[in-house]
């Protein structure tokens, strides 16, 4: 304890008054005052100005995947970082724990918002340049949306849900509908695609259908009630709800309206031979995972547990989540907490009494357009290939994730 604070005994505190004007502790006997009390968190200028979590809370992001490129590296570059889903509650990922990924250069630009503009040009009647103030004058919307990286795949090697599913997060995004801006510019009849481009070192660019732009894309300047964080695209990010993460162009500086698929920079990774594989690597499928109990956790003993998890889909809102506690023989309907939002993490819960025997717990979800999350065996059957333990799901991996609970309460990867 700092010297000045240590010198203040309980008696000095007696003269202090509460915010309501009445003296504190006046009615308390001295014996109570002398009891050991919970240590105080001393208010600092920094803590007053911008809050911080308790030092007892140690939930942290980590480099992804295991054994991959570290973040930060020796040059301060950041690559892929996964969110600690095992500790998550509710549906909002705190901005400080939101997953992020950068492409090749792993370069996070430090952008002065006063200098930043968004140019919209190409097949429009009126090309327009908006600065940040312009964008904040326009009608805004606020929506909850997940973003998931295409690299969010699971297999038998991961030990916990952060390693297996941590490249997804969900935040409340605020900004202007892209359709509002495109109507201001006036789309020409030949407009079929658009290219979105960031301001980072490689000017990362992605091509997307104009129908998506006019449907629900969002030009976001707000994230969880404050400005979008630099790692997530400050000052401006394109949200493409339900599409894989790389399309959600960060540090957005330009939108070019075009008549065909441009295949610029980030698109190249989507080159596939089979149309089926290309289609399954574009919009995120229905997906869920149990976050508690999950790999690496320890059940203290038999008895009641609410099985908790997250479900999401690029196809819309989650309609139903089912949980199995017997390795997938019987599926039970789980409770959806609150109202499921379109293309947003949805929290589910299922009451379970563990009898202390070995168990395998799984979840699966169904979205509003009737797509249901498959098991790996079901996917293999659809493609008419023999199922093997290490079967790799084509396209984005939205297959069911099993967790195995041993008699001693340890939880491990059910695919291992």
């Amino acid at each position, binding site marked *: 304890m700092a010297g000045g604070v240590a010198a203040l005994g309980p008696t000095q505190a007696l003269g202090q008054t509460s915010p309501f004007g009445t003296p504190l502790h006046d009615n308390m006997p001295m014996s109570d005052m002398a009891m050991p009390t919970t240590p105080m968190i001393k208010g600092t200028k920094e803590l007053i100005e911008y809050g911080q979590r308790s030092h007892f809370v140690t939930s942290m992001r980590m480099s992804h995947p295991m054994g991959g490129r570290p973040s930060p590296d020796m040059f301060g570059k950041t690559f892929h970082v996964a969110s600690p889903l095992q500790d998550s509650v509710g549906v909002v990922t705190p901005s400080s724990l939101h997953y992020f990924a950068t492409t*090749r*250069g792993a370069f996070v630009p430090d952008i002065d918002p006063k200098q930043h503009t968004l*140019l919209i*040009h190409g097949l429009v*009647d*009126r*090309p*327009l*340049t*908006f600065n940040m103030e*312009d964008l904040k*004058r*326009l009608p805004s919307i606020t929506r909850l949306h997940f973003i998931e990286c295409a690299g969010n795949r699971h297999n038998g090697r991961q030990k916990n849900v952060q390693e297996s599913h941590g490249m997804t997060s969900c935040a409340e995004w605020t900004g202007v509908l892209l359709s509002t*801006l495109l*109507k*201001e510019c*006036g789309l020409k009849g030949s407009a079929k695609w658009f*290219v979105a481009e960031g301001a980072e*070192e*490689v*000017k990362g*660019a992605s091509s997307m*259908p104009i*129908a998506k732009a006019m449907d*629900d894309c969002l030009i976001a300047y707000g994230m969880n009630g404050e400005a979008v964080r630099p790692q997530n695209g400050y000052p401006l990010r394109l949200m493409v709800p339900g599409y894989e993460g790389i399309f959600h162009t960060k540090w957005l*500086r330009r939108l*070019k309206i*075009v008549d*065909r*698929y*441009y*295949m*610029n*920079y980030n698109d*190249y990774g989507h*080159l*596939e*031979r*089979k*149309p*089926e*594989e*290309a*289609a*399954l690597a*574009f*919009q995120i*499928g*229905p997906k869920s995972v149990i976050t508690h109990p999950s790999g690496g956790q320890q059940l203290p003993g038999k008895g009641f547990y609410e099985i908790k998890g997250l479900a999401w889909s*690029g*196809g819309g809102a989650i309609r139903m989540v089912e949980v199995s506690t017997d390795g997938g023989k019987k599926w039970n309907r789980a409770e959806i907490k609150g109202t499921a939002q379109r293309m947003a993490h949805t929290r589910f819960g299922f009451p379970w009494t563990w009898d202390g025997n070995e168990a395998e717990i799984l979840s699966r979800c169904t979205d509003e*357009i009737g*797509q*249901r*999350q*498959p098991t790996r065996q*079901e*996917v293999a059957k*659809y493609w008419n290939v023999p199922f093997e333990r290490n079967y790799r799901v084509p396209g984005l991996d*939205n297959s069911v994730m099993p967790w195995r609970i041993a008699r001693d309460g340890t939880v491990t990867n059910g695919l291992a």
Partner: protein
Amino acid sequence: MGSHRLAAILVLLASPALAQSYGIGRTPTPDEIRAMDISIGPTGEELPEGHGSAREGATLFQAKGCVGCHGRAGVGAMAPQLQASKSQDVPIWERGRGSSGWMILPLTAPYATIVWDYIHRGMPLGKEGTLTADETYALTAYLLFLNHVIPEDQVLDKVSLPKVKMPIGDDYARLPEWKHGTRRLQGYPY
């Protein structure tokens, strides 16, 4: 119809604000757009003046430090492989991947413009956006030559580059048309 109402309609029809609801944002100059528009599409209509050949590109591949990450002649280093290791009679989808699993861009890109765009915006590491148009044409030519797509003496410019026939031809997937409420893949039950 009252004359006031008629006048109001005439004003609306005459005003450019008719289609623009908010009047927010400014009109960029053509020069501003040109300076920012680095997207090169398959037709190559955005390509700048300039030219380059594989011979010039081979020199630049050394001079610009490309070899440091990609290896001599684009093989055998940390960054993605740029020249196929397998012979030309191996089908494109079998020889198109480098040893690390990444696609070899100057071999498998469906349009040569994609290679130009990629180099111009994203290379070299740490000095992105510094290559001139001539340098980018030359490096593109060199990488296409290494993969037997064009002869060593072919000069690439804004006319010849979009005409380069890439070996992948039509043998790649087009993305499905997207509509609100679209399933990932029609007929796919999941």
